[in-house]
């Protein structure tokens, strides 16, 4: 194999990879927008925050579900956190299917931190969810201020958003 062929194969591979990632990104972005529209259409006075999936979220939902003896659905790669007076919900999919629902009284507190995936850190809201006889921590990787997949929110923005969510929850 000549150097030219190797170079061409490498470039072709990089091009296919870039196009594939671009398509994935576009599909996720469109899905998230439709999800936000569907939630806004279905609920009044709702504060919607776009989120991205994390293994820690799945494990936390599984723990909380075990304590409450219910099974939560998976969030999917992108999902939304909707806070309305007295209720915190997670939605997935273009038609905003309900993943989980928590009463405002069960949301004890929230703190802002990070969760990691490989070398990347994601700004994360850690909600304290009361279930059974204890409080579980539910990590939610937030994106913002624009609803764009893989665009992690800044810590300052996340602190303000966390305060806003608690304010909406407490009416």
């Amino acid at each position, binding site marked *: 194999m000549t150097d030219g062929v190797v170079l061409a194969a490498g470039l072709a591979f990089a091009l296919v990879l870039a196009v594939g990632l671009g398509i994935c990104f576009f599909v996720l972005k469109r899905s998230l927008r439709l999800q936000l529209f569907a939630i806004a259409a279905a609920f009044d006075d709702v504060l919607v925050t776009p989120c991205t999936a994390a293994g820690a979220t799945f494990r936390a939902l599984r*723990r909380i579900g075990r*304590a409450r003896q219910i099974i939560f659905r998976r969030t999917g790669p992108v999902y939304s956190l909707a806070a309305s007076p007295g209720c915190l919900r997670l939605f997935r999919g273009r038609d905003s299917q309900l993943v989980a629902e928590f009463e405002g009284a069960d949301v*004890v*507190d*929230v*703190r*802002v*931190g990070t969760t990691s995936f490989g070398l990347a850190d994601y700004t994360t809201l*850690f909600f*304290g969810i*009361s279930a059974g*006889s*204890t*409080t*579980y*921590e539910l990590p939610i990787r937030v994106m913002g201020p624009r609803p764009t997949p893989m665009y992690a929110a800044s810590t300052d923005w996340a*602190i303000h958003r*966390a*305060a806003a969510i*608690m304010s909406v929850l407490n009416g």
Partner: protein
Amino acid sequence: MAGGTVVAIHAPDTVLIVLIWVMLGAFGLMLAALAVWGLVIWREVHLGYTTLEGQFRHLQQLDPRTGEVIRTAGSPYPSKNRRSRID
């Protein structure tokens, strides 16, 4: 003279093979250490406590040396945590 040349050609191969085995061994040790670490965490969680900082809020946190309760189950993490909390 020819014998010396043969040694000069084969020596790098031997070094390379030894290096590969050392790397594989180190990788295996690292995997084993990770597995043991995971097993220790699983055992703690299974017994209903944790010694890890800032994890498993729903479990009580014990001091890894003395076994004293640092944090009760469900309560927020100690103030050492750099993250802000909004109640």
